[in-house]
């Protein structure tokens, strides 16, 4: 095995000798919890500032229209209104930003604070009213008159690609904002030669992340110092800081973006939003603190949506069920803009990148078009592309297994990349490192007692009941390093993280990171890592994150990367810091640094009475001159930057067990089992929680959630009554089994924040198809609502009726 920098045998031996780790791998209670459980967490909307003003937006009620006039005189006259802002009013204050990329065939749409000239989706902000209270701001909003010249509306992405389609962005000359193709092997010949071919047109409808906390921004500007602080419910304070710097023309050291307590994100808070720009601009313009908090309708209409693809795919196999070729053409409906910084390529391109999955599929062709329509922009949503690629590939495999007459479990076992084949480059160019593909499936089947379920199914079928079992296996790339980039040349570095750890004069230990936790418990997990690597207690370490001022290259939390990258950085920084502490301690104890051990904040020479503490070392270094020679009084601070270069492979198999009520067509999930390999676990409690939450979102995606636009581009799912997020009564008991194949990354960790959402939709689609196999129904569209099910069953029955 090749040695990874920061993880060499010598490094590990040193860590082993010098510390007594006890936190990594333990089910440690989260340090975040007490404040959150007592209502003392501070989310953005909980903050008040003296003289604070509130924003309400007047949003477009047209899907596509030219703005002819805006009359805001009546709104301006409302007592308590401080300002009414339009694109024109802000023209000199900011420049548009662009989600740039070096991708060929890509058009980066300008992103502005407010719509100028044209509106391109219902809910796009057009005018901002700033007033003493939100109530007053909303009153005034209603008095604004906007004159529109409606333009032809583009809602169907397949219509949008036609040559005569009306254009959203005339400058682009097309509605196809990106086009890409991946090819490997002789897919044509192999497909032609394949004795078994299965294909389908698959549809994965649009979703929206729906974090329970709506987005919220509070900007404070200090005119005397020319400094702006934005409190933002964002996952990516570093990225927002950079975007503001560009848009507002302010250097980064005058800007600070703080993400305090953030109430969930799931990708929906990982992009720059026009409202963020407006709040910052208004605060600078008016010299007063300005806050905006989204209401749920605004959230459902104007927070980035997710997924929304149509995939024509075909799989060719031999008689035994070995895949010979896979081809797919993907259309991604990306909405009105190319979101910053991810670009509109992120979501649909990931679909084609991951279609070959954990399988030995060497002959592959995937094409993708990202198409602009008059809908909210899509952005990252938990799983990004992979829930869809997994849905398609796993459905095709089940269809093939059915055709050939082998068990769905066996067809997967036959096609998995085997342990001796890693690292393995799949048809789209992604390289998998060793991960438990086969073991996960076997463990999941064992946990659920797969064979017993098949026996139960036989009985159920004999009794005319619809009972189904569905498997989905997948692999994902997590903790990606600098050599992997979804859209080359994006305005951000996803590949490295920095940690700065310092010990102050009182012995207080502070570890600062560029990431931003919003429910993942990173304050706890990173403290576990720092504590183990330094040799102190978890409660001795304070974690700073969610603050663009913490490190020079602040980022955020997205793409299942924070644990892998930040833990790696923490390990490197802690090692350097430990060496400095040991150097000083060795002098104090009159011992060799090589003989020292750090444990629970104490530094000692084993089997002697020589012992000191981190606190005492700090005092000797900083305060009590004379105790140490100059060269042992180094500042107790260290930084570490980690780049996992290629990233890590996380894999899992999901099994869904369900039955379908023949009277109501309601689908009742009985059980859901996940066997996953995210490498070494830092905190099993937290890992389980992440999987459960991801699976619940996958269940939502499979059965309930769908953003619906009508033919005029009006959104019909603008409340939580219409956009159905599953409640406890819709979610079955879950079981999670862990395989722990250590990864090549520092610490052996792999990322796992998104996986639950990747596997669940496919597993459920397979289970529903399995339940309805006697009727010959194959699920090719998600969510599979009772209404869709009703139509499918009706159609199947009339088919069989015809045959009889």
């Amino acid at each position: 095995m090749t040695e990874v920098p920061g993880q060499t045998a010598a490094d590990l031996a040193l860590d082993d000798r010098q510390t007594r780790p006890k936190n990594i791998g333990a089910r440690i209670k989260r340090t975040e919890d007490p404040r959150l459980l007592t209502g003392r967490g501070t989310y953005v909307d909980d903050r008040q500032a003296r003289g604070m003003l509130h924003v309400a937006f007047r949003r477009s009620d047209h899907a596509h229209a030219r703005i002819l006039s805006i009359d805001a005189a009546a709104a301006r006259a409302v007592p308590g209104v401080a300002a009414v802002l339009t694109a024109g009013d802000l023209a000199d204050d900011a420049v548009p930003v662009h989600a740039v990329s070096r991708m060929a065939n890509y058009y980066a749409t300008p992103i502005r604070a407010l719509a100028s000239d044209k509106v391109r989706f219902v809910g796009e902000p057009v005018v901002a009213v700033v007033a003493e209270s939100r109530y007053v701001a909303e009153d005034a909003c209603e008095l604004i008159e906007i004159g529109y010249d409606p333009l032809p509306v583009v809602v169907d992405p397949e219509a949008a690609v036609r040559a005569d389609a009306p254009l959203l962005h005339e400058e682009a000359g097309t509605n196809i904002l990106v086009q890409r193709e991946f090819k490997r092997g002789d897919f044509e010949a192999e497909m032609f030669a394949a004795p078994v071919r299965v294909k389908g047109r698959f549809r994965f409808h649009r979703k929206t992340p729906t974090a329970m906390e709506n987005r919220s921004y509070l900007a404070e500007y200090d005119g005397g110092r020319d400094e702006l602080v934005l409190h933002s419910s964002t996952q990516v304070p570093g990225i927002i800081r950079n975007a503001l710097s560009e848009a507002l023309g302010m250097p980064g050291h005058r800007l600070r973006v703080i993400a305090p307590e953030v109430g969930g994100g799931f990708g929906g808070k990982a992009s720059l939003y026009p409202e963020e720009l407006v709040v910052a601009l208004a605060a600078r313009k008016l010299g007063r603190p300005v806050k905006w908090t989204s209401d749920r309708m605004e959230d459902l209409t104007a927070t980035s949506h997710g997924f929304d693809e149509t995939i024509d795919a075909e799989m060719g196999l031999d008689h035994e069920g070995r895949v010979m070729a896979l081809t797919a053409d993907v259309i991604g409906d990306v909405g009105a803009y190319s979101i910053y910084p991810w670009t509109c390529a992120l979501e649909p391109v990931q679909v084609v990148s991951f279609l070959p999955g954990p399988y030995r599929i060497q002959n592959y062709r995937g094409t993708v078009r990202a198409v602009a329509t008059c809908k909210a922009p899509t952005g990252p949503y938990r799983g990004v592309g992979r829930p869809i690629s997994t849905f398609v590939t796993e459905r095709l495999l089940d269809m093939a297994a059915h055709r050939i007459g082998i068990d769905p479990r066996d067809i997967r076992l036959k096609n998995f990349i085997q342990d001796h084949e890693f690292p393995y480059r799949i048809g789209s160019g992604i390289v998998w490192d060793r991960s438990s593909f086969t073991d996960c499936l076997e463990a999941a089947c064992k946990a659920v007692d797969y064979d017993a379920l098949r026996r139960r199914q036989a009985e159920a079928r004999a009794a005319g009941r619809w009972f189904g079992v569905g498997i989905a296996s997948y692999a994902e790339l997590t903790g990606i390093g600098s050599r992997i980039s979804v859209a080359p040349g994006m305005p951000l570095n996803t590949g490295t993280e920095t940690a700065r750890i310092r010990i102050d004069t009182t012995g207080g230990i502070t570890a600062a990171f560029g990431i931003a936790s919003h429910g993942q418990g990173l304050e706890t997990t990173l403290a576990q890592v720092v504590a183990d690597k330094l040799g102190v207690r978890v409660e001795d370490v304070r974690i700073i994150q969610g603050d663009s001022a913490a490190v020079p290259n602040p980022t955020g939390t997205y793409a299942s990367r924070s644990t892998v990258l930040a833990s790696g950085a923490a390990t490197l920084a802690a090692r350097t810091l430990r060496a400095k502490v040991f150097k000083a301690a060795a002098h104090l104890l009159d011992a060799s640094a090589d003989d020292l051990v750090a444990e629970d904040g104490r530094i000692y020479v084993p089997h002697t009475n020589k012992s000191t503490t981190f606190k005492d070392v700090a005092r000797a270094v900083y305060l009590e001159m004379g105790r140490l020679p100059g060269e042992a009084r180094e500042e107790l601070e260290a930084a570490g930057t980690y780049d996992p270069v290629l990233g890590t492979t996380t894999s899992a198999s999901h099994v869904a067990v369900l039955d379908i009520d023949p009277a109501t067509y309601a689908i009742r999930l009985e059980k859901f089992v996940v066997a996953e390999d995210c490498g070494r676990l830092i905190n099993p409690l937290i890992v389980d929680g992440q999987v459960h939450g991801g699976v619940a979102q996958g269940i939502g995606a499979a059965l309930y959630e769908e953003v619906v636009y009508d033919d005029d581009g009006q959104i019909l799912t603008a409340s939580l009554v219409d956009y159905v997020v599953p409640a406890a009564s819709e979610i079955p008991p879950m079981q999670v089994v862990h395989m722990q194949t250590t990864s090549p990354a520092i610490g052996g960790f792999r990322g796992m924040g998104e996986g639950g959402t990747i596997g669940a939709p496919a597993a459920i689609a397979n289970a529903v198809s399995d339940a309805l196999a006697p009727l010959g129904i194959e699920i090719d569209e998600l969510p599979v609502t009772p209404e869709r099910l009703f139509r499918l069953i009706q159609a199947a029955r009339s088919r069989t009726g015809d045959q009889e």
Partner: protein
Amino acid sequence: MSAGKTIRVTVNSVIYERTVEPRLLLSDFLRQELALTGTHVGCEHGVCGACTIIVNGDSVRACLMLAVQADGATVETVEGLGSIHKLNPLQKAFQEQHALQCGFCTPGMLMTVTDLLRKYPLATDEDIREGLSGNLCRCTGYEHIVRAVRTLVRQTEGTP
């Protein structure tokens, strides 16, 4: 702005007297007037349950009530449960079972469960899930919340 109305509300055993606009929501009253920001607002149309509080002994959605309707009422919010250094048994169970992630739904969950535990035996997991079904959580998938409530129910059964 319409004329204010003076109301008297007891929140977590403290009596507050304030003059408010008749259209002010109870959730905004708690958060903005009393700075009790533990009560969260996730939808303002009574679906998500984040704003759940207990008014005169019953759980209600603070976003569906006007502050003036709470005149004379006794209100319990999350701030009235245990404190940071002395969590109450329900809060402890939530921490031990990792029943919260981002924490946004948590105050509403805690108030709902507080009300459920006072009124129902919650004998089965289905009962617990049914009882929680008016509170949305997007992070936890509910599994650990159900476990936390179940552990607590068992503990309370154990104590005479």
